[in-house]
């Protein structure tokens, strides 16, 4: 039984975005992020075009125009890594914060990094919510990701929920036995002791995983496994898929061009 919603962010649907060939979606997403990354700082028109494209794609997925937008703030904490840019890049002074000079160039660079990251996350979210994970894996295999690696990842995906559940059971058992009070700081012994309990749980989980993998392997052998995973028939790329990819590439190329010309 599944107890947690670590689930798959995939949302079932039959929109144009859902039915697009998974290979096309993977390539389109990677190209989108590539273009977003390579654009120079301050290419506002291109950023706007990319953002418009994510909105259009979200609309095409029939999940709502702002679907990806609302979920796109996961990368926000990492902004800390770039927060020093406005202060450290030398240039025309813009304003003063706490005695430090903010330069125009630095602020521009900071905002650009944030916008690029933000539109990239939206593209990745749209790919994940409109593509079932097995289809995504199939696309990766077709795009020449080594077969054994794809098989390992698909195995991992299959047992992710089982092990996450076991981990959750371990955590519930710990909460039940280590007298967790209202104030978490005052419960369950000293810091090192708490850490060692967590470590013991990890070791326990490792053993369970290890022994489970032995059982799985034996079951696979019993069913005729010979070192190669067989896959079912796969979707065929239609003309619609090809046109969609061609149109997308043209759009991205134009966006990149605009970005470099009008920056």
């Amino acid at each position, binding site marked *: 039984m599944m107890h947690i919603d670590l689930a798959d962010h995939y949302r079932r649907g039959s929109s144009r975005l859902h039915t697009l060939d998974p290979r096309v979606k993977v390539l389109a*997403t990677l190209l989108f*992020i590539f273009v977003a990354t390579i654009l120079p700082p301050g290419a506002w028109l291109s950023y706007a075009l990319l953002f418009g494209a994510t909105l259009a794609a979200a609309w095409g997925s029939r999940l709502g125009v702002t679907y990806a937008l609302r979920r796109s703030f996961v990368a926000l904490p990492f902004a800390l890594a770039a927060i020093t*840019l406005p202060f450290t890049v030398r240039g025309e002074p813009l304003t003063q914060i706490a005695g430090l000079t903010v330069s125009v160039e630095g602020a521009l660079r900071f905002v650009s990094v944030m916008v690029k990251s933000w539109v990239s996350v939206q593209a990745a979210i749209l790919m994940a919510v409109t593509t079932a994970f097995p289809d995504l894996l199939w696309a990766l295999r077709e795009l020449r990701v080594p077969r054994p690696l794809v098989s390992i990842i698909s195995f*991992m995906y299959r047992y992710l929920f089982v092990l*996450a559940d076991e981990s959750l059971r371990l955590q519930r058992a710990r909460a039940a036995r280590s007298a967790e009070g209202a104030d978490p700081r005052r419960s369950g012994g000293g810091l090192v002791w708490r*850490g060692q309990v967590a*470590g013991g749980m990890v070791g326990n989980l490792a053993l369970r995983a290890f022994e489970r993998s032995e059982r799985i392997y034996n079951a696979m052998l019993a069913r005729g496994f010979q070192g190669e995973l067989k896959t079912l028939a796969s979707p065929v790329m239609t003309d619609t898929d090809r046109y969609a990819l061609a149109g997308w590439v043209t759009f991205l190329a134009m966006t990149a061009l605009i970005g470099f010309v009008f920056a």
Partner: protein
Amino acid sequence: MLFKPVQLHIPDGFLSTPVSIVGWVLLVAAVAYALRQTRGQLGDKQIPLMGVLAAFIFAAQAINFPVAGGTSGHLLGGALAAIIMGPWAAVLIMTSVIAIQALIFQDGGLLVMGWNILNMGVLTAFTGYFVYALMRRLLGEGRNSLLAAGAVGAWLSVMVGAIATAIQLAVSGTSPLGIALPAMAGVHALIGLGEAIITVGALAFIYATRRDLLGIGEAAPGKASAGWVGVGLAIALVVAAFSFAASPDPDGLERVAEDTGFLERALDPVYNLFPDYTLPFISDPLISGILAVVLGTLIVFGATFLIARVQGRKAETS
């Protein structure tokens, strides 16, 4: 809430395109070699065992313990996986974990995934394993030696991952090295303690219950090559880093390097290889620069790989 990202996941946009591409090139080489090595080590079992253990690391990252002030200690897992299964297997396990986190949960970007996996998977695995193996040889058998070696390996693995991340951010011009390096190293010196405590706890548990499992990592292939490739990756990282110090951007790394005056000395041998860091037969300085870096990195990696193979043969024949 339950599965919150570890701080080292870089989102897209924070690394420059050339830096991201170098990361992918290195990752492809590392994973290709890891697949061959573990195939030899595990045979048919490779796929189910690696898959389930990857799910294990993913689930284990959710186990945390409260530390003061609402923060919590948790596990990254690269060093632990390497100690239990050997470094090449750990590379595959961590690659799967980080790839799934990026593909399903958007923890970490796609274009920067190369470096995310190298930082949190490859560098942690090799650092952890290398230090662990070294300390085991020095301290000998026994429980205390195991736990001490695990602790130091785990702590250092997080530090190396954090330092590598700081260098990539600096080279990309996202954060000057003078700030990123002390900040990342400082924060992760503490986070590494959590990693060390959990790793030690896990090793103690496995030592008490299934001591035989710890033999797998010690008997894993590529012990010699692990050390060499670890060193090679470090060198490749430095080459990739310094190559972009030669860019006109006066930021970050170069400023630090100018101040300390070690840039010229450090770059001398590199410049001899590719003058001005551009390839003479390509006119565009950007593309030429990228190619030069990729080539330089590949040469270092290739040389290391060859040395590792020669060493491996020697070890086999002797």
